[in-house]
């Protein structure tokens, strides 16, 4: 329902923007707008790539942007035209259109929403520009894009669940801090985890959304602690590190010791999360690797060289326990 609303919105807004012709450029975002070449696609060995990023809504996203900028650097033979759409689907579609008009060699998109991509992807196809999707995916038919590189959220949830199922053999009460309601990572991480703990001694007491934010995680965890009491909860499963960090604050405020009295398992492995893991406040983290740039750059080169590429490339996620976190922390890039 919400998705359909958003895509309708995206379509109407795109139509409006298309009428406004060349209203491209910065509209209030941090680094919206294009910086870089308009020198078409025919300049020798340099590959011009347009990258339509979602925005800069999280630390994960910033690390992802960094990774893309590094992989598509001039040293690697690329000319990157970067656009951050500030999480506005209409602006993102418009950015892709402007890439097509500029005649870039390839387009990389991290779609904000899944729907509403058919038309613009068809336009890219008609213009002979290959499209690589990064991170999230789209509902459009898969012959409209060359390849997708991303992560398997369900597998992340499953890994976290497998750890929990192996770790807790006594009857265990768990509460869940969900991600933003309806988002793909929240849905898939829940499914993967639930499948992995099915038949184990873990009981899910309660589950509520913390919107992937620290404040949300803290508030919801406070509520759970009031509702069930500190002693009733043994395990917290947080869909991302930020909510786990919020939960740590709440557990400490309730006079218990996070990681000991109440164990925490989470997904993401951002630096603050890894620090908390190394400090013993979180017990297990499954990584959600934002460093997709290298793989995306490989795919772009392969597609342009006319090689056959897989439609789906999944970047493997690692998992960390407390000792591994301590070892990995010093050269953590994000």
């Amino acid at each position, binding site marked *: 329902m919400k998705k359909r609303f958003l895509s309708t919105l995206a379509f109407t807004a795109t139509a409006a923007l298309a009428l406004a012709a060349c209203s491209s450029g910065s509209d209030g975002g941090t680094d919206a707008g294009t910086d870089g070449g308009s020198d078409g696609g025919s300049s020798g060995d340099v590959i011009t790539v347009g990258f339509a990023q979602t925005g800069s809504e999280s630390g994960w996203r910033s690390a992802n942007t960094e990774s893309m900028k590094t992989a598509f650097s001039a040293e690697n033979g690329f000319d990157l035209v970067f656009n951050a759409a500030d999480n506005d689907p209409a602006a993102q579609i418009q950015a892709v259109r402007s890439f097509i008009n500029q005649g870039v060699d390839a387009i990389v998109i991290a779609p904000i929403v899944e729907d509403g991509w058919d038309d613009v992807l068809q336009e890219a196809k008609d213009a002979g520009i290959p499209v690589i999707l990064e991170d999230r995916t789209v509902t459009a038919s898969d012959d409209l894009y060359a390849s997708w590189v991303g992560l398997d959220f369900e597998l992340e949830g499953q890994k976290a669940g497998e750890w929990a199922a192996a770790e807790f053999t006594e009857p265990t009460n768990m509460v869940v801090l969900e991600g933003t309601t309806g988002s793909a990572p929240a849905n898939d991480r829940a499914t993967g985890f639930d499948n992995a703990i099915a038949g184990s001694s873990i009981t899910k007491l309660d589950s509520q959304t913390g919107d992937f934010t620290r404040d949300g995680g803290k508030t919801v965890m406070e509520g759970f602690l009031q509702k069930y009491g500190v002693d009733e909860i043994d395990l917290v499963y947080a869909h991302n590190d930020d909510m786990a*960090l919020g939960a740590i604050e709440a557990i400490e405020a309730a006079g218990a010791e996070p990681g000991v009295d109440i164990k925490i398992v989470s997904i993401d492995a951002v630096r603050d999360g890894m620090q908390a893991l190394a400090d013993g406040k979180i017990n297990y983290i499954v990584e959600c690797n934002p460093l997709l740039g290298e793989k995306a750059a490989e795919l772009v080169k392969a597609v342009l060289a006319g090689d056959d590429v897989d439609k789906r490339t999944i970047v493997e996620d690692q998992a960390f326990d407390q000792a591994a976190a301590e070892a990995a922390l010093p050269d953590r890039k994000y």
Partner: protein
Amino acid sequence: MNRIYKHRLFWPVLSLLVLIVVNTIARPQFIEITLQDGRLYGALIDILRNSAPLMLVALGMTIVIATRGIDLSVGAVMAVSGAVALTIIDRSGSPGAVGTVFVAVIVAILVSLVLGAWNGFLVSVLKIQPIIATLVLMLAGRGVALLITGGFITTVNSEPFAFIASGYVLLLPVAFFISIAAIAAVALVERRTALGVLTESVGINPEASRLAGVRSRGIIWGAYMVSGTLAGAAGVIYASNIKAADANAAGLFIELYAILAVVLGGTSLAGGKFSIAGTVIGVFIIQTLESTILFLGVPSAQSPVFFAVVVVVVVVAQSQRMRGAIARVGDAFRKQDAPERDDEKVEVAR
């Protein structure tokens, strides 16, 4: 009895009490307050503590709305304020020093004051419509905050800074005392001096008050400065609560919740007469409602609907027309009240 029933705060207070009763029936622990390590602990205490940012923002919003204005930029100002405070603490050599935290908080609030003054300038001097004037900062402010933090969540480990939101004094949370101080300050200035009456007169009829010699420009300008400053303080509390500056999430949609709190408290969006006590009750209703969703275990997917339904019921129940209409009978009331109901739904959906 009749007088109590007719009091304009009767319905807001009743709604709050009903929510508390419902929660207590669902989970008796809700009402429980225990003493733990020299501090009071319980769901009600959490509500007092967690409501502080919304309380400050809503107080500022009340004053702005009384002048016939609206301040949409409060959430963005919160984000900027948190980003400024955390960046100062993070960059300083001594994040744990009280002096550092003091400087950081003062600078953050001063920056917010300046942002509020900018809004006030646009509205009172350049006569730009408030919704447009503050929209500028609402959209740009979060970008500025992201720029300050470099797109990452800045985290600090600073005991004195964490104390602002998580500390306790005299058994109660520090954040609650900040709320009380803000309520008292606003109430004193607006109700014990002529300023409140002047603010209302500007809101009721700007032209007439100008002719009567009221300097509306200063009053309107001041209202936005108060709103900016309070939003800045709210941003500091928000950041302190999570010990981090989360430029994306800090104060997201708080402008709408603040407006909702003001409306629940019986202040009209058309400006003029305002009720500080009403706003305070409105904030507590919203915060208790958040807890209710948790305590009743409403699934995440349904919680916005639950929230909306409760808010619509409360707003409709306290509307003058609705109460008049209940007294009368017939189909007429439906026609009269339908548009108003729709308005409230839009308010929530946004």
